[in-house]
C-alpha cells in the first residue's frame, strides 16, 4: 500500500504536461491502470489502532453470543503473532549487514555490507508459519505413553517420586489415577480453582503407596501427590509373586469390591484403577468386581485396605486350627498341604455351624452376584435356526481342508490324481 501511495505522489508532483510531452523519458501507459481519481485517506484504523485492539475486534464475541457458546471450540478465531519468524536484519531482499545479521569480523576479514542471492522460499515459509497458528492442535501421544484416554493425565506414568535426601526411588513408577479441578469459594477472591490429583507409586516388587495432592496448577498437584505417595509406601506380600493370597471382600463407604485369586496367565481382570495398583505392587493375576458406588477414591482406598487385611496361609490355618490343603487341576488335584497349624482339631471339636468352606470363610460369607446369562437376542429368532441348518453341512470343512493341506500340501484328495481331466477343467 505504501509503495502504491508513493508512486501516486510522485505522479502528482510532476506537471501533467511534462508527462505528456516526454514520451522518451517515461512510457505514456506507465501506471495508468492503477491511476485512480478517488480521494485517498492516508490514515485509517489499520495504522491508527494498535494490533491488540485490531485483534480484539476480530476475536471478540458479544455477551449474548458467548452465552450461546460462540467463540469456543474448533471454529474459534485465535490471535496470531504475525511477527513470528521475522528477524531484524533479514528481509525481502537478502542483505548481509555486518553487526546486525552477521558478525563484523569473520576470521581476519572485515565483512562488508553486500547483497546475497535472493531466497525465493522465504515468504512461503513465513506464510506457512502464520497459517500453522490458526488451528489449535491437541497433544498427540503414542499408545504406550497414553493413559486411559487421549492425552489426559489419568492412567499416565509420571516417573518415580523425587528423592528424599540421598534416598532415591529406583525402580519406582508412578501412575496418575485421578486429576480433577475443584472450585472453592473464598471471601475475598470469589470462586477459585484448585487441582486435586491421586496417584499410585510402586516398584512392582511389593512396595506401593498412593497419595493425594492439591494445588493451584495441575503439574504441581501431581508432583505433590507423587511425593506424598512415595512417603507412604506399604509392603505387600504376594502369593508366588503373581497373585493375592486368597479371595477377599473389602468395602469403603458404599463401594464394595470382591477380589478373586487366580492362577498364572489369567491376567488382571478388574477396574482400571485397581489394575494400575496391581501393576505397581507386582500382582499379575487377579479378578475384581466392584459393586455399589464407583467413586474412584473409595475404590482405591477399599482395595488397599483389602490388601492389607489379607492373611497368609499359615495365619488362616492357625485361625481355623486345620490343615490348609491346595488342589490344583494341572497337578491332577494332588493334595498339597500349604500350611499346618501347631495343633489340629479333630472332627468332634468342630462346631456344626462353623464355616468350613475356604472361599466362604475368607470372603466373610459374602457371595459374588452371578447374573443369569440370557441367550443372545438372535438365538431365539427364526432366521438363526435356518442359518444353523444351512451351515450344518459345512461344519467340518475347515478342519478337512487343514488336514488335506497337512497331508498333501494343498487342498486335494486321492480323487484328484484319479481324475486328472477334472483338475484341468477347474484350472481353465
Amino acid at each position, binding site marked *: 500500500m505504501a509503495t502504491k501511495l508513493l508512486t501516486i505522489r510522485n505522479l502528482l508532483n510532476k506537471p501533467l504536461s511534462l508527462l505528456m510531452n516526454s514520451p522518451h523519458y517515461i512510457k505514456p501507459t506507465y501506471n495508468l491502470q492503477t491511476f485512480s481519481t478517488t480521494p485517498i485517506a492516508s490514515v485509517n484504523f489499520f495504522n491508527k489502532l494498535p494490533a491488540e485492539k485490531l485483534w480484539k475486534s476480530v476475536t471478540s464475541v458479544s455477551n449474548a453470543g458467548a452465552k450461546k457458546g460462540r467463540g469456543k471450540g474448533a471454529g474459534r478465531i485465535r490471535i496470531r503473532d504475525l511477527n513470528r519468524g521475522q528477524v531484524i536484519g533479514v528481509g525481502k531482499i537478502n542483505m548481509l549487514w555486518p553487526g546486525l545479521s552477521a558478525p563484523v569480523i569473520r576470521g581476519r576479514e572485515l565483512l562488508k555490507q553486500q547483497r546475497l542471492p535472493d531466497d525465493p522460499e522465504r515468504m512461503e515459509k513465513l506464510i506457512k508459519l502464520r497459517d500453522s497458528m490458526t488451528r489449535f492442535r491437541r497433544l498427540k501421544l503414542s499408545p504406550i505413553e497414553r493413559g486411559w484416554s487421549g492425552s489426559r493425565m489419568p492412567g499416565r506414568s509420571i516417573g518415580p517420586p523425587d528423592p528424599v535426601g540421598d534416598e532415591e526411588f529406583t525402580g519406582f513408577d508412578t501412575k496418575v489415577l485421578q486429576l480433577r479441578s475443584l472450585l472453592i469459594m473464598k471471601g475475598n477472591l470469589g470462586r477459585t480453582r484448585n487441582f486435586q490429583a491421586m496417584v499410585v507409586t510402586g516398584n512392582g516388587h511389593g512396595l506401593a503407596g498412593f497419595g493425594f495432592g492439591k494445588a493451584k496448577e495441575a503439574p504441581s498437584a501431581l508432583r505433590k501427590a507423587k511425593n506424598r505417595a512415595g512417603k507412604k509406601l506399604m509392603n505387600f506380600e504376594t502369593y508366588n509373586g503373581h497373585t493375592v493370597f486368597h479371595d477377599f471382600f473389602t468395602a469403603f463407604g458404599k463401594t464394595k469390591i470382591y477380589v478373586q485369586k487366580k492362577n498364572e496367565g489369567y491376567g488382571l481382570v478388574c477396574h482400571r484403577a485397581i489394575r494400575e495398583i496391581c501393576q505397581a505392587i507386582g500382582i499379575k493375576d487377579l479378578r475384581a468386581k466392584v459393586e455399589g458406588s464407583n467413586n474412584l477414591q473409595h475404590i482405591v482406598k477399599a482395595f488397599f485396605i483389602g490388601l492389607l487385611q489379607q492373611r497368609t496361609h499359615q495365619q488362616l490355618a492357625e485361625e481355623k486350627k486345620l490343615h490348609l490343603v491346595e488342589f490344583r487341576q494341572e497337578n491332577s488335584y494332588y*493334595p498339597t498341604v*500349604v500350611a499346618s497349624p501347631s495343633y489340629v482339631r479333630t472332627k468332634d471339636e468342630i462346631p456344626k455351624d462353623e464355616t468350613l468352606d*475356604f472361599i466362604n470363610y475368607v470372603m466373610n460369607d459374602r457371595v459374588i452376584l452371578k447374573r443369569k446369562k440370557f441367550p443372545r437376542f438372535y438365538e431365539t429368532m427364526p432366521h438363526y435356526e435356518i442359518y444353523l441348518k444351512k451351515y450344518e453341512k459345512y461344519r467340518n470343512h475347515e478342519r478337512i481342508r487343514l488336514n488335506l493341506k497337512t497331508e498333501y500340501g494343498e487342498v486335494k484328495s486321492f480323487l484328484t490324481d484319479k481324475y486328472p481331466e477334472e483338475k484341468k477343467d477347474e484350472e481353465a
Partner: protein
Amino acid sequence: MSLIKLCQNSTKTILFKCTESQGLYISARKLSIVPSIYDGENPAPKFFSSGVQIILKRLTRPNFEKVFRKRTNSNISVLRTPVYKFLTDEELKTEQSNAYKSAERLLQMPPVVKVQEPVDDVLSKDPALVGYDSSTYLFTDITHGVANEHRLIIQREPDGTLRSCDHDVRKKLNQIYFPMQGRKLRDPLVFSDPEKLNSLLERQKYEYILDRACVQYEPDDPQYQKLTSITYQHVDMNNQYDLIRSTRHFGPLAFYLTWHNSIDNLMLELVQTGIIREAVLLMSLRQAIKEDLVNGEESTALVSEILPTRIQLSKPEFVSEEDIQLDTKCMECLDKYINNNSAMKSQQGLALQGFREYYQQLIEISRGLQKAHGNA
C-alpha cells in the same frame, strides 16, 4: 537275540529287518539300534504274574512330585484357579489315599504281550460273485457294548471271498467308527519318519515317545514293540533311567531289559546311586523271569523283607539297626550275583566296594548320632 549292537559302522545307518515294505531305520551317530520284539515265547504270563508286577511297581520308584507334576494337556488356555480346603488329619489322610489311588492309575503299566499274529481265516468263497464290484466291501458290526478287539470286521473281496480283516484294517475301522482320542488314522510323522524319531530320541523325549506310542498303537502291534524297543535301548545306552522313573513306562523297560539279558547297565546305575535294595529287586526280577541266578532263592527271599520298607528316593543318610541288617544282607547277595552272573564284573564290583565304604561311614555316623541322642 542280541540286544544292542554297538557296532561302529562306517555307514551311518543300518536298515533293520522290517516286515513292512517301508524301511524304518534309526541312525544315531554311528550307533545303530536293532529293535527286538516279543516274537518268541509269550511274555504275558510272566509279566502279569503278581510277583513280577509288585517288583516292577517298586522298581518304578514312584515320586509323587513327578507323578503329579504340572501337566497342561487339558486343552484350556488358562490354568484353573486352585481349590483350597480346610481339612482335619483324618480328612487329609483320606484325600492322600485317594491321591495314591489315582497315582496307581497314572502309573498303570502298558502291558507287555506277544506280538500279534496275522489273521487269515476265509469264511466263504463264492466264485459266482466275481465281477459284482471291483472294490472290496468292508463290513463292521457296530453293535453297542462290544470291545474293539472282539468286534466283527469282515471283508468281501472282488473275487467273492469273504474273510476276516487283518489287524491294520481292523485298527483303521475301529478308529473310524469308534474313535479313540489322540489316535490318528494314519501313523503320525514322528513314527513314520525316522529322522523325526531320531531327533526326539536325541533330545531325550522318551516319555513323550512312549506315551504317544501307547495312544497310537495296541500293545501287540509290531510297530509299537519296535518303537518301544528302540526307545528302551536308547535309554539304556545313555543311562537316562531317571527320565522315565516314576512314569508308567519304567516297569516295561525293566522287564524288557531283563527279558533280553541286558540289565547290567541298570544294575550298575542302581549300585552307583547307592540304592542297593532295588538292585536286589532287579536280581529277583531276573530270577523270576530267567531263573539263571546262582543265588536266586536268596534274592527272592529278600524281596519280602524289602517290600514293606520305605521307598528310597536317594542315597540313605541315616540308618537304623534294622536297615543295617537288611542292607548287609543285600550287599552279600549282590556280591554273589556280581561274581557269578554279571557281565560287568569289574565295574559293578568297584561300585559295590565304593558303596560299602560309604555305608560303613554312614553306620558310624548314625550310631554316633543315636548315642548322642541317648537312644542307644
